[in-house]
Structure formats: structure tokens, C-alpha cells
């Protein structure tokens, strides 16, 4: 959710790049819809996103059996709140030829790590666009 909140702040840049962004949840459709439409997590705090209704700019995709998540190597790795069904977060960038050009595993190691991660993804999208 943090990554998505950060991405939404830079959606103009995504649109300038003519790029498309998807966010995949290894969860049923209801949870995916809640993730997309409701700010259930950050609304509980007092931070900059606490008053926002929805934080997710990307197209949200439900991967209920975790197939895509397994193929992309991120499935069933972490316990967390979902107790094993959630994904280990990871970014992938794909160029015009359909080739994966960039992979980033967020570390969540600092309070502002999300900004750096999204900047790196945007940079990878810029490169992917330039290679057309």
C-alpha cells in the first residue's frame, strides 16, 4: 500500500512516459477490490495519506490462486497478517518487446524507502521507453 501511495503521487510522470502499471494481489476479488478502492491501512494513522479515500493508481489484479505470483517467484513466502498467502512484494518492468528489464525487491528498511523504490521503477520505465 505504501508503494502504491507513493506511485499515485507520481502518476503524472507515469502518464508522460505512456506506461501502464499493474498491481497484483494473491487474493480473492473482494480483497483486491478493497485494496484498490479503500484506504484501509494508512487511514488508521496520522500521516499524509490518512485522509485519502483511495491510494491505488495502478490497475489492480486479483490472482486468487497465486498462479502469477508463483510464476514471478513471489508467492507463499511470507506469513504476515495473511498467514502465508500474501506475496513478497516485488517490482518488475517490461519493455516493448515483452522482455523483463528490471526487478526490484523493496526492502522497507527506511521510512522513505518507498520514494526511492518508485523513483527507480520510473527510471526503469524511462529506459524501457527509450529502447523502442
Amino acid at each position, binding site marked *: *500500500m*505504501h*508503494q502504491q501511495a507513493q*506511485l499515485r503521487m507520481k502518476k503524472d510522470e507515469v502518464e508522460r512516459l505512456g*506506461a*501502464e*502499471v*499493474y*498491481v*497484483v*494481489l*494473491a*487474493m*480473492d*476479488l*473482494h*480483497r483486491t477490490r478493497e*485494496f484498490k*478502492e479503500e484506504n484501509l*491501512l494508512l487511514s488508521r494513522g496520522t500521516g499524509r495519506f490518512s485522509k485519502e479515500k483511495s491510494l491505488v493508481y495502478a*490497475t*489492480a*489484479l*486479483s*490472482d*486468487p*490462486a*497465486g*498462479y*502469477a505470483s*508463483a*510464476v*514471478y*517467484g513471489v508467492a*507463499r*513466502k*511470507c*506469513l*504476515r*497478517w*495473511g*498467514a*502465508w498467502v*500474501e506475496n*513478497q*512484494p*516485488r*517490482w*518488475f*518492468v*517490461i*519493455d*516493448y518487446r*515483452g*522482455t*523483463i528489464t*528490471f*526487478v526490484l525487491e523493496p526492502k522497507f528498511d527506511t521510512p522513505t524507502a518507498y520514494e526511492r523504490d518508485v523513483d527507480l*521503477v520510473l527510471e526503469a*520505465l524511462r529506459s524501457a521507453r527509450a529502447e523502442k
Partner: protein
Amino acid sequence: MHRMTIAVVGLFLVPGAGWAQPTSPLEKYRRLPFPAKDENFAKGWQERVALEYEVINAADLKALRLALKDEDPFVRAIAARALGILGDKDSVDALTDLVKADKEYLVRIRAVESLGYLKMKPEVVQSAIKDRDGGVSWVAKLAADQLKSDTDYAKQLREAYATGIKREVMGTAKVSNPAPDFTALTSDGKPFRLSTVLGKKPIAIYFAAYDG
């Protein structure tokens, strides 16, 4: 020749002479060398995924109901999840017991989630919102909404698992490789296939956890 065929078949039918009871997916899950514990974060996940598919697709309801009382919490949890996805209304009382009294939060999560999929026991789901564990409470809130919905989420899950998964395709998405294709549902329920959007724009995909 005929006599030889009978002898070979007989060899496999005589106990202790080369024939063995096939191991069920649930039993294989019980014997996982790396169950879904924190310390196994990056180990054995492919086997966990593959067996989850096998347990659900095998749909051995009798074994799954028995497994709700298994001493291993990971086995109770996968059985609870499978029974909800399989729409087994006969397991509702046992799932209710797990929601109310299982000492492991990961089992209570899967049990309350399944009551949501089965659209039964709204009062139990409501009470689970007050569970001492934040994860159980969170999933119970979502299950309470699912109970009221007309959408058959369990059917969607069954259809998704029914496609199966091969171990050799897992983890194949790597830099310089073609992006593996997959299907999904958009948040408004429309089918999506990655290959239909490749080549038109540069694409970023984020595989998210709910809180990441």
C-alpha cells in the same frame, strides 16, 4: 507372455512386493520439509504452492474434514482453506470451533476466511472481528463483507486453482527473460491476460502484499 503379464501385475498388487499406497496431497503437505514458517521464507515455497493446488484440486472432503483436528497447525490451516474454497457446508461447525478456539492465529484466519466463502455463520464472523490477533480481525472484517455479497468467491477460487500449476514455471520471471504470461481478474471482475497488453506500452507490475 500372458503368464508373464499376470506375474508382473501380481508383483505390484502383493503388499510389500513393490506396491505402496500412494501418498495423498494432504499427507505430502504434512511432510513438507519447509512449512510456511518465518524461517522458511525463501525455502521450499515452490513445493508449498504446488501442494496447495494439489490439496484443493484433489477435493478429498473426508480427509480434509479430519485434518481440521490435525495436531499440525499448517495442516489445519490448509484444510480450513480448502474446505471453504470447495464449498463444504458440512464442515461449518468444525470451522466455527477453529475460529473460536484454535490457539494458532494462522488457523483462525483461514477458518474465518472460509466461513466468508461459505457465506455461513455471520455471528461467528462478527465475533472474530474482536479477535486478539490483528490479522484474524482484519480477515474477519473482509469475510463479513463477503458473507453479504452475491459474488461466489469460492467458485472463482476453485476455477483459478483448477488450471493447475507446474513446478517448472515457478520463479521463471527474471531480467532479460520474456515476461511470463498470466491471467487474472481486474478489480471490477473483468478477465485480464498480460500477453494482450505486452508490446503496446512499457509496463510495470508490482506484486503487492496488503500492507506493502
